[in-house]
């Protein structure tokens, strides 16, 4: 599609990059909360041309990274349960728990299958009627509608050896907790592109009203990102915070009603634990009672017990934007992509993985 190339066109990028240098008139400390933004910003090289006075920190935008150590341990012990076959997104495979990872479990005979889509888990369930196939639900608003659709499809197709262990999370509640933290000190938010496609740009208006936060919803191409940074700098320079949606080709003000209705049909809000942020009221999604047959926690009476974070790992602080990976004593020595200690080094969209891959040492 021609327009994708246009967003990477040097003839457009150069003037935008020049404009960014002029746009920053007051200090901008912005947070992005989307793993794809984390990677896109690194890949585009924008960090190397950031004007003085502009700082970008990564927040809790990587779903695997914010999955608590307690949930990871519960996942891994499920893998070892007899008659269970796990279906997971690939990023989860190598995340360490207190005692090994799903990859380790797999190497000792546990049935763990990596899927591209949750619908693939239904095919697996049909092929293995004697196993209970459990999809490990990890993800934000972009992922949850598909999981809801998969549960509805399982019900329609009467696939009864399939269920979901939902640790799904929603972004606005976590953002609210972060913004109440006096240590954070951010004045601008690069709103996540595809989470916003579902929840709508309107979801950020309360943060403008409550915290005087400059908000821009942006896409992932270099022109989108530069445009986003310019708009945030201008909002702060003029002291006029607002929600500016510069990704209208994908994001509407009100969001995706069809997807939201499907999520609401299957899920309800619950309190859930985030790595680094603790338990946040109403920030999780659990499967409604009427779909309890598809709820792994109900079916197997799973108990999630609190466990400490890996010793020395600063993932929790990194996810809150309180520190950066090179300041972690484990970064690049004890903790590398080949031998990760924390999830932020494992996930392809983790902040530590991004710093490591792009050679940023602080």
């Amino acid at each position, binding site marked *: *599609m*021609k*327009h*994708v*190339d*246009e*967003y*990477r*066109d*040097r*003839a*457009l990028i150069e*003037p*935008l990059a*020049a*404009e960014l240098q002029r746009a920053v008139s007051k200090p901008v400390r912005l947070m992005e909360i*989307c*793993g*794809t933004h984390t*990677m896109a910003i690194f890949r585009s090289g924008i960090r190397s041309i950031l004007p003085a006075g502009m700082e970008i920190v990564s927040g809790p935008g990587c779903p695997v990274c914010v999955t608590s150590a307690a949930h990871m341990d519960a996942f891994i012990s499920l893998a070892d349960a007899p008659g269970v076959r796990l279906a997971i*997104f690939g990023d989860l495979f190598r995340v360490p728990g207190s005692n090994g990872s799903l990859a380790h479990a797999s190497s000792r005979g546990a049935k763990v299958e990596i899927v*591209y*889509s*949750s*619908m*693939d888990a239904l095919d697996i369930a049909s092929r293995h009627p004697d196993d209970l196939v459990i999809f490990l639900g990890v*993800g934000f608003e*972009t*992922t949850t*509608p*598909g999981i*809801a*659709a998969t549960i*509805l*499809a399982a019900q*329609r197709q009467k696939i009864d050896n399939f269920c979901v262990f939902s640790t799904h999370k929603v972004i606005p509640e976590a953002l609210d907790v972060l913004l109440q933290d006096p240590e954070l000190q951010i004045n601008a938010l690069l709103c996540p*592109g*595809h989470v916003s*496609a*579902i929840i709508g740009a309107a979801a950020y208006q309360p943060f403008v009203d409550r915290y005087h936060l400059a908000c821009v919803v942006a*896409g*992932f*191409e270099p*022109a*989108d990102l530069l*445009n986003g940074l*310019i708009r945030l700098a201008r909002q702060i320079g003029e002291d006029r915070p607002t929600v500016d949606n*510069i*990704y*209208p*080709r*994908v994001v*509407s003000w009100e969001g*995706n*009603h*069809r*997807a939201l209705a*499907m999520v609401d049909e299957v899920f309800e809000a619950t309190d859930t634990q985030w790595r680094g942020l603790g338990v946040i009221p109403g920030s999780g999604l659990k499967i409604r009672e009427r779909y309890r047959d598809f709820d792994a926690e109900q079916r197997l009476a799973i108990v999630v017990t609190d466990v400490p974070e890996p010793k020395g790992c600063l993932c929790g602080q990194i996810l809150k934007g309180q520190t950066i990976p090179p300041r972690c004593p484990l970064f690049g020595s004890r903790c590398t992509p080949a031998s990760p200690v924390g999830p932020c080094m494992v996930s*392809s*969209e983790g902040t530590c993985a991004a710093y490591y891959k792009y050679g940023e040492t602080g």
Partner: protein
Amino acid sequence: MCLAVPMKVEQVEGSPDDFTSEQLATVNMDGISRKVRLDVVDRWPEVGDYVIVHAGFAIHSLVEEEAKRNIELIRELASHMPEEMLQGGDGS
């Protein structure tokens, strides 16, 4: 990981209100065709439209014109720059 590149719709199966049949689109990106689910797409796509896909599900459909309008908005932002800078080199 969000896949940001829109994929072109080549074929549509099912209908938006009938959840008893498969709701699928065949999409193409860089010459590779694949099937994606349309269960949660915001607007039912026509052949020739584009969809944004996440983990096998189309989450948004757009027509070429919407994409064009968006790039125009960005061009406007950069438009106070000399014309020759904006129009030099065809990177597409």
